[in-house]
């Protein structure tokens, strides 16, 4: 592979688009099975209560009802990712409003729902834990009184009641470093619960065959995670469980864990019939997943010249009622908390806690948006105090390839500085940074609108755990590629096919992608963590490489030459180097392999993330569940906003989003991830927040919980692709799924600070919060100098 193969870097349209455009793509709820029953659930009305009795008689008596299950009907087999605390239905107690308490399977959906409504539950209300403060206070009520008895993998050390995890990443000597700082900024930042709001509500169909094998089709991000959990929950060997994946209507991390599959499988087992459960939007809001809200206390110090010296960060994530991803979200947040800068003295600590609210879990960014909102605000606060340009301050401290990440891993590729300069130059940063005004005079001219421009720089990883792929050469020389990488809609299938086409120098039209089905697909840990292009892509390159080797061997035998004299030529041919007329097509080679010699050609690739491990001699790393997790990716955003001083509303005017993706396998798909991720991040910054009052969710519907529509955002969302090839990546590629979300909120907050002179430390920056800040500032001191104002431009700068 010397020259770039034709398929790499091309804006090839996706194969799945045609069916999706025609309404012919089948999602889980579009599927039916002969004899299929429909399921409904009954949710808890209380954030914390003991279940005293459940009367299901009226529900069972309804004609058409085939099964009614409660927690008491199910085996006491808890599951989880790190802490095994979950059950399919509440067992004895309920821990959040909406938690499934009972489930019904009936011949039609209306009957199932009517029956669920007839179930009577007698509760004894318990005092709930509704905030991080309540969870951690002395004498706190334990959300899980039986926590000590739960199985944990690994046991991460729990020091206080309601602690799901407590971790630390530290380097240097932060306590003595403050004395070397000329300026120190300090603040407390709060970030909200964001709901995934994938447009397809969670859905699953389960059925058993007569031999006892379970098949589950569901919206998921990993057939293997689902298979493993079903195995535990239903006490079945994995070999008796098939997990398949119809089209997925978005996930964003919200379908990465196991959701309703065990419950639906229990209903199928109880009835002996296929059962489908699709949550209503309201049930999905109340009973599925959300981003961890968090409180971040952080202090950062620098020298006068802008050299960053020290950071002390303490974060607490609200994990909600069940642990799920919380230990990993916490650890990943801490790993990102130094930011993409060299800061010699860092103490980065955090906890994840239980509360009686909806469980939090993975959501695009995975703990990183929370810390990066806080830390990138502090970089701008430092710039303001030091009178330095925020972009220059970032460039001065930016990590580079060959440098080390906190924890000691070597950074193997890094386009961060290029991202910063490209976003700066494309946005007209320098002129806009100095032009935007915050004076009352400006308000009169603009009808009360103030403009500002802000920047963020950030990192993420791609990597994590295991994956594999197979490439099979079909009789006609075309190819079937199989991976375990579920396509959530982001284009995993298309990009992996493109990598396969590149690795074999074939036209994309000759690559067939096998469906992701645990009966046939090679293992993949999950579609998540921005890892599929990088990790599954590497497995595809390996598998394709094994196929190339066999093709070369066949060609060498046919041409009676050494394998070293054979080259693979574009378009599916193998030939003798330097002899253009001596060549043979893949089809002929494959026929030979199938019918005459060697057997059908199949190649496989498999790996576990194999980057450098953390260096525990240099860094203090406590309770982190992984010893290595990924290769670093980088980005920088510049955002221009307008703040309405009458209402406090912030409008995004334009954004420039530069991302180092190593190598863009398909630039169109990369741009789609950048724009879509930015917009979700803009929602996190300005709009989205799940709200509770006394433990009751008050906006669990799309009427009340809003996401941005087409009219709320500008068309000027400009993706900028930076390519600094990653040596370990497939054709140099790295991941892009999550970073665009991570950088959105801090750049927007920094732009708001530039526009108004005010630092908002709470997300979302709703009109009301912004107006509160504007009013408070005016009341305190109308002449107050703006803290984030830049110095006057120096001539020639």
């Amino acid at each position, binding site marked *: 592979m010397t020259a770039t193969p034709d398929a790499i870097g091309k804006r090839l349209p996706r194969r799945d688009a045609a069916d999706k455009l025609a309404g012919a793509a089948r999602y889980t709820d579009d599927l039916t099975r002969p004899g299929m029953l429909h399921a409904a659930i009954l949710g808890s009305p209380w954030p914390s209560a003991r279940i005293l009795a459940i009367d299901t008689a009226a529900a069972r008596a309804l004609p058409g009802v085939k099964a009614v299950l409660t927690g008491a009907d199910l085996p006491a087999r808890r599951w989880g990712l790190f802490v095994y605390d979950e059950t399919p239905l509440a067992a004895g107690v309920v821990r959040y409003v909406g938690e499934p308490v009972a489930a019904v399977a009936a011949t039609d959906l209306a009957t199932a729902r009517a029956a669920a409504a007839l179930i009577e539950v007698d509760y004894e209300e318990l005092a709930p834990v509704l905030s991080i403060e309540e969870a951690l206070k002395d004498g706190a009520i334990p959300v899980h009184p039986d926590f000590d008895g739960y199985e944990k993998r690994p046991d991460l050390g729990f020091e206080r009641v309601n602690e799901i995890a407590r971790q630390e990443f530290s380097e240097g000597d932060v306590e003595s470093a403050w004395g070397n700082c000329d300026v120190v900024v300090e603040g407390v930042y709060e970030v909200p619960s964001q709901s995934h709001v994938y*447009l397809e509500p969670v859905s699953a169909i389960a059925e058993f065959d007569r031999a006892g094998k379970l098949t589950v089709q569901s919206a998921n991000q990993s057939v293997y995670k689902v298979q493993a959990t079903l195995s535990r929950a239903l006490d079945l060997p994995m070999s008796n469980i098939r997990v398949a994946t119809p089209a997925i209507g978005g996930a964003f991390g919200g379908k990465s864990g196991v959701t309703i599959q065990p419950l639906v499988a229990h209903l199928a087992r109880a009835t002996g019939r296929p059962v489908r459960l699709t949550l209503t939007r309201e049930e999905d809001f109340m009973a599925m997943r959300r981003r961890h809200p968090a409180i971040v206390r952080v202090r950062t110090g620098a020298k006068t010249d802008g050299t960053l010296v020290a950071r002390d960060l303490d974060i607490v994530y609200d994990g909600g009622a069940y642990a799920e991803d919380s230990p990993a979200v916490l650890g990943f947040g801490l790993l990102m908390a130094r930011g993409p800068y060299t800061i010699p003295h860092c103490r980065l600590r955090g906890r994840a806690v239980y509360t009686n609210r909806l469980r939090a879990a993975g959501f695009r960014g995975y703990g990183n948006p929370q810390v990066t909102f806080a830390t990138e605000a502090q970089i701008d606060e430092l710039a303001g105090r030091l009178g330095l340009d925020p972009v220059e301050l970032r460039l001065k401290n930016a990590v580079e390839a060959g440098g080390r990440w906190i924890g000691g891993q070597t950074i193997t590729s890094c386009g961060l500085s290029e991202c910063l300069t490209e976003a700066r130059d494309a946005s007209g940063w320098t002129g806009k940074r100095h032009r935007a005004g915050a004076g009352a005079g400006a308000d009169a001219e603009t009808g009360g609108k103030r403009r500002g421009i802000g920047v963020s720089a950030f990192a993420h990883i791609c990597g994590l755990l295991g994956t594999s792929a197979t490439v099979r050469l079909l009789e006609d020389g075309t190819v079937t590629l199989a991976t375990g990488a579920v396509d959530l*809609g982001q284009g995993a299938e298309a990009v992996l096919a493109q990598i396969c086409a590149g690795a074999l120098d074939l036209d994309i039209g000759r690559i067939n992608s096998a469906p992701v089905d645990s009966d046939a697909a090679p293992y993949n840990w999950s579609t998540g963590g921005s890892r599929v292009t990088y990790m599954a892509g590497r497995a595809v390159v390996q598998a394709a490489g094994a196929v190339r080797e066999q093709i070369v061997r066949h060609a060498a035998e046919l041409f009676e030459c050494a394998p070293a004299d054979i080259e693979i030529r574009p378009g599916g041919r193998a030939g003798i180097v330097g002899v253009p007329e001596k060549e043979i097509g893949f089809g002929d080679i494959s026929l030979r392999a199938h019918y005459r010699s060697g057997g059908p050609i199949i190649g496989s690739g498999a790996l576990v993330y194999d980057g450098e491990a953390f260096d525990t001699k240099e860094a203090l790393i406590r309770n982190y569940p992984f010893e290595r997790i990924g290769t670093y990716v980088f980005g920088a955003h510049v955002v221009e906003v307008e703040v309405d001083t009458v209402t406090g509303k912030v409008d995004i005017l334009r954004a420039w989003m530069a991302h180092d993706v190593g190598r863009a396998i398909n630039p169109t798909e990369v741009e789609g991830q950048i*724009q879509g991720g930015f917009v979700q991040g803009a929602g996190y910054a300005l709009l989205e927040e799940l709200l509770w009052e006394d433990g009751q969710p008050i906006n669990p519907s799309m009427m009340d919980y809003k996401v941005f529509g087409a009219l709320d955002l500008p068309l000027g969302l400009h993706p900028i692709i930076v390519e600094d090839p990653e040596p370990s990546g497939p054709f140099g590629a790295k991941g892009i799924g999550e970073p665009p979300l991570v950088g959105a909120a801090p750049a927007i907050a920094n732009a708001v600070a530039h526009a108004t002179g005010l630092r908002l430390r709470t997300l979302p920056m709703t009109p009301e919060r912004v107006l509160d800040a504007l009013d408070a500032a005016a009341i305190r001191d109308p002449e107050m100098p703006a803290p984030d104002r830049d110095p006057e431009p120096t001539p020639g700068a």
Partner: protein
Amino acid sequence: MTGGGVAPVDLTVNGEPLTLLAGPGATLLDLLRSRAQLTGSKQGCNSGVCGVCTVLVDGKTARACLMLAADCAGRTVVTIEGLDDDPHAAVLGEEMAKAGAVQCGYCTPGIVVALTDLFRRTAVPPDAAAVRHWLGGNICRCTGYVSIVEAAVRAGQRSVGADIEARAP
């Protein structure tokens, strides 16, 4: 909802007269998905907010989840499946695929239906502002809308007012 029985509803779907059984409280979306096996219209919020169930009712963009099935007697309904041969939808599909405007695809049929209606009722190709206005009620959680709007504008330029005979509903 309880009480009341299942009653037949006569309507025309994608050009075919159909008699479908509607339970009490059933919506047009329920009817299309469960009784007519037309699953291209999706269920997203069931409250008219997200737009994934968008269909044409009597030639106008409608939310299938907000049309009571029993009140649809005599109506003419076109779903995404009924636009299979529509020239506007075909051009739009090409442009959306090319632009990367199709990701998870769950909002896609509703957007194609809504834009086809827009293309049919305008004599000049809609600009970006008109497209955004028209799509204000079609939520997409994947793309950030830019690629969809840009593809729609390009499709409109090729399709609206061009020598394509918009098929009658």
